[in-house]
């Protein structure tokens, strides 16, 4: 543990510091996904998890394969796909709110009016 701390304070930031940050972000997302009832909160948790995965792609690319761009493009396309997914999910949530006047998963026992 002590050599990890000295590594953190001298020299470049080690890779596991970045991975630890994305780990905390990912499992905060997992907790929110499991503990909230509102569909918008679940969507926010999914965004947190996707963002943590993006950080991992970029960090692995930068540390293990500098000069290549695979992880970079993976993160780029993941951001685009996350934006698509959010747009469609929010359209569905607004439609559900219009039909059921609530966005809680407990009230969602029918998808068809």
């Amino acid at each position, binding site marked *: 543990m002590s050599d*990890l701390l000295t590594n*953190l304070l001298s*020299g*470049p*930031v080690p*890779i*596991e*510091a970045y991975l630890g*940050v994305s*780990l*905390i*972000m990912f*499992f*905060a*997302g997992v*907790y*929110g*996904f*499991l*503990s*909230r*009832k*509102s569909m*918008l*909160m679940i969507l*926010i*948790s999914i965004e*947190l998890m996707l*963002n943590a995965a*993006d*950080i991992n792609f*970029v*960090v692995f690319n*930068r*540390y*293990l394969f*500098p*000069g290549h*761009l695979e992880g*970079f*493009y993976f*993160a*780029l*396309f993941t*951001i*685009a*796909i996350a*934006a*698509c997914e*959010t*747009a*469609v999910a*929010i*359209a*569905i*949530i*607004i*439609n559900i*709110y*219009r039909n059921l006047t609530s966005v809680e998963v407990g009230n969602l026992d029918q998808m068809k009016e």
Partner: protein
Amino acid sequence: MAQQIIFFVLAAIIAIFSILAVTAKQIIRSATYLLFVLLATAGLYLLLGYNYLFAVQIAVYAGGVMVLFIFAILLTNRPGENVKTELAVRRVAAGATALVGLAFCGHVIYWNIKKVSELAVQADITPQQLGHSMLGTDKYQYLLPFEVISILLLACIVGAIMIARKR
């Protein structure tokens, strides 16, 4: 040294605000905390030397997605209303799941990845290089995913309009 300080500030912002985002009582506060997390992530990208990804993260996530979220929250929530959470038992179970996963993955990372901690110097990625690799068809060039993403975006626009329109 400046790099370490910036990293620790960004890491603290991400850790604190991502936990606040999933525990906040009001959903609009959750969205605001998520915005801070996304901005700090953009800062991490900048720290790693990927300037283009920084711009994309700010424009797409912190711009577009957050506007969508805030619109959706204002359309579906009465102001001042607290978010309902699951039963206490389920919340404890969710917290236990997250903590177990955190401990397991942290253990794996700590014992396996600490050998690779040096950072090789990397030349800045020029826009020219980026454009060539994004719009070429050779190996390590990404024209096909680029076009597939554009079709996916089109399908999403059409789908979102179809789903959310008034009948």
